[in-house]
């Protein structure tokens, strides 16, 4: 009797890329829900636009590259990139912002490097940074927390240039807490003075603390489900905490508290969902800790002394560049070797 032969191991494999991506998308739900609740429909519209652009762009490039389209789309990685990028964008931004950002992320940062598994940079952050540098104004259009236009008004603002010019966008939008800190510290105000404004919540930025808590929740679930490993989040949040604590203790009037740093901006989203992108991160256990800590330190440096209010995206891209070197120097000791 003849039999089929395959290579060992023969037990059915336990893992699955698309299942992983789905779990990560699922873990984004609490944080995203908080963002929608506080910043309105614009968040959902951004996610939708970015997702459509990502799928279209990925399919097109795969077709041109003569690669299997359906199988690759089903791995869910393009969708995840789109959602992560969209979550970094303000709700009142015009439609072409998520589209342009996603196109860059998928076509240039991902597919031109060879597609899933080959991109040296986190595609979502590469797309976001391109937008941040090219269209700084459009990236400030955050509505006031809890005070956002209705669905139809938002749709009009997003898609119609006429609607945008007919309203005073400045009146609708509001600086984020991180932005405010940056500006007002520049005006020689003290932290306690700045904190007295409506922009600050219980421990982090108002509204942002809830969003960060949501992402923290999802991230902890990912850890518990062993979808991600602890080293990168712990490294990044730990470094951010230590850096902010040291400077806060040194001078609480000029430096914001560790709680503010951990629960404002993209801290939690970055620590659990962006820095943990395995393709562009360090892969050794010790390396991941260093990689995470590097992102935490750079985020703090950029937030505190850099030109942008938040620094997670830049920090991630900078550490992406360092990942191969970190891996090289942090190889684990092989069993039985001295």
């Amino acid at each position, binding site marked *: 009797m003849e039999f*089929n032969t395959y290579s060992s191991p023969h037990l059915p494999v336990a893992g699955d890329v698309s299942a992983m991506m789905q779990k990560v998308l699922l873990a984004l739900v609490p944080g995203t829900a908080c963002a929608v609740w506080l910043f309105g429909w614009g968040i959902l519209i951004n996610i939708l636009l970015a997702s459509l652009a990502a799928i279209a762009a990925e399919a097109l490039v795969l077709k041109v590259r003569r690669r299997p389209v359906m199988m690759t789309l089903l791995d869910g990685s393009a969708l995840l990139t789109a959602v992560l990028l969209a979550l970094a964008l303000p709700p009142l931004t015009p439609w072409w912002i998520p589209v342009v950002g996603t196109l860059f992320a998928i076509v240039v940062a991902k597919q031109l490097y060879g597609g899933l598994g080959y991109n040296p940079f986190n595609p979502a952050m590469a797309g976001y940074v391109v937008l941040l540098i090219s269209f700084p104004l459009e990236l400030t259009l955050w509505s006031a927390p809890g005070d956002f236009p209705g669905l139809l008004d938002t749709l009009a603002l997003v898609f119609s240039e006429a609607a945008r010019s007919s309203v005073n966008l400045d009146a609708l939008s509001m600086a984020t807490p991180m932005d405010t800190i940056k500006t007002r510290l520049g005006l020689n105000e003290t932290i306690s003075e700045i904190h007295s404004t409506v922009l600050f919540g219980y421990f982090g930025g108002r509204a942002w603390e809830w969003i960060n808590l949501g992402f923290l929740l999802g991230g902890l679930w990912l850890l518990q489900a062993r979808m991600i490993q602890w080293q990168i989040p712990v490294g990044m949040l730990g470094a951010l905490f230590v850096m902010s604590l040291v400077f806060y203790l040194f001078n609480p009037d000029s430096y914001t508290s560790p709680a503010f740093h951990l629960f404002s901006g993209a801290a939690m989203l970055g620590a659990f969902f962006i820095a943990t992108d395995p393709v562009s991160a360090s892969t050794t256990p010790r390396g991941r800790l260093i990689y995470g800590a590097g992102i935490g330190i750079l985020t703090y440096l950029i937030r505190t002394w850099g030109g942008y209010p938040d620094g997670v995206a830049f920090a991630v891209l900078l550490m992406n560049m360092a990942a191969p070197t970190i891996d090289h120097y942090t190889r684990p000791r092989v*069993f039985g070797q001295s």
Partner: protein
Amino acid sequence: MNHATDTDPHDRDVGDRFERLHRFHGGLVLPGQHEMSTSLPIKDAGVPPVLVVPLLQHIGETAECLVKEGDHVHKGQIIAAPSGSVSAPVHAPSSGTVVAVAERPFPHPSGFSFPSVVIETDGRDEWSEHTYTLPDYRQLSRVRLLDHIRAAGIVGLGGAGFPTQVKLSKGPSNRVDLLVINGVECEPYISCDNMLLQERAREVLEGVGILQHILQPRDCVIAIEADMREAEAAMRQAVSTAGDTGIKIVSVPERYPSGGERQLIKVLTGSEVPSQGFPSDIGIICQNVGTAAAVYRAVVNNRPLVSRIVTVTGAGVKQPRNLEVLIGTPFRYAIEACGGYSDDVDRLLMGGPMMGFAVNTDEIPVIKATNCILAVTRKEMPPPATALPCIRCSKCTEVCPADLLPQQLYWYARSGNLDAAQDYSLFDCIECGCCAYVCPSHIPLVQYYRHAKTEIWDAEKQKKASDIARDRHQSRQMRLEQIKRERAERLARKKREVSGAGDARDAKKAAIQAALERVRKKKEREGLVQKNVNNLTPEQAEKIREVDTRRQHKRPPGEH
């Protein structure tokens, strides 16, 4: 704990040395599936009509065939003698007639054939007559026992099949600190060690006693996997009945691949066998429980290794169980002894589902290293899914028991960067399959590593060949140069001879010169004789003449 000062190996409680176990990195908790084949007792599979006995059944050198077509053989008769140090003799597993000595399909991943002795059995299963019986092993020397174990054709029955006496003679100079008897059957489905311990605990224990006698280890431990409760109980029972054996039984947590020699030693002692080294390097010898039982049969019953226990299991076989199978029995016969295949059988494996290999035919024979025949259905083990790109999630790193970076190894193996793969310790990979099992991209990682290893071996072989060729080339070059040199010298000599005319002229000149010189000297001499003769008296002149005349006479002949 004062083991260091304690010297008597048997008269001491190994006590708390193994109270606290250690952990190796990575590994997996796999669905056991052992119970599938443990409900029925071990059954004798009987004598198949034809036995195919390969002349090599383990790592090392092929045995030298001693029989030819038409020979009648008895059970236990030596049909192939060991050649070289890492070799074991092969015995006829049953009585019958040799019908061929030829290449036959062999259980190997490559599916190749190998020289085998084909015996048509006569069904009488007659043992060859023993010329002597062995006295009590306690009276025998270590060397004598090792010879006997070698003559019995015993190899490691845990799967690798390394000749046992080679392992036992390792490190005779340095003391054996610990003898580990491996009863940790960590791969799913396999249960032959489990059933052996349950049914023949006493045999195993006696075998361990013989090994202790040979090695004189300070400690001896029988390690049994935690889920093999009946086996552990049977072994404990046997040990307590036997009294003071100095043997400790340790239950090892279920975690694949804790039955791997290196992993097991780490779990028991916390020490690591050096990479590319042997357990004996750190004073440890590891033997499988089945091997211990085979040693018992060889030494106490004087029976060579002609059969072994094989687990025949999987959803592809109707009645999974353990069989006592003669070496050389075709897989098909063993499967039939278990009720035959179920309808939807898809794959046939030798060994377990993690490290075993798929064979394409059931005509291949059971060999000494066959611990399991696994017939599986498509539902049980579906064909591998299409591989996706590696996303560097490093789940493989998390589970690697050798602490390697499988994703880097894959990267280098795939791109053919074999130097880098070796730099990342490719050869420390034990091919346990944990990495491939957890890979979300379904990459057949182990296949890549095996391929890379083979390529490196091939390259080394080629390098050796090219080294030899280079040496040959260099010595040829030297030879040629010498011939050239010699020819040049000959040529130069000839040239001198040819240009001899010029030389002759020189010689003539020299001769003339010499003649002139002689004349000059002579003249000088004569001149000297004639000096101060102008103012002589006649007497003086007379005297001179006389002297001159005398001188003339005294001159030797030839001066003129």
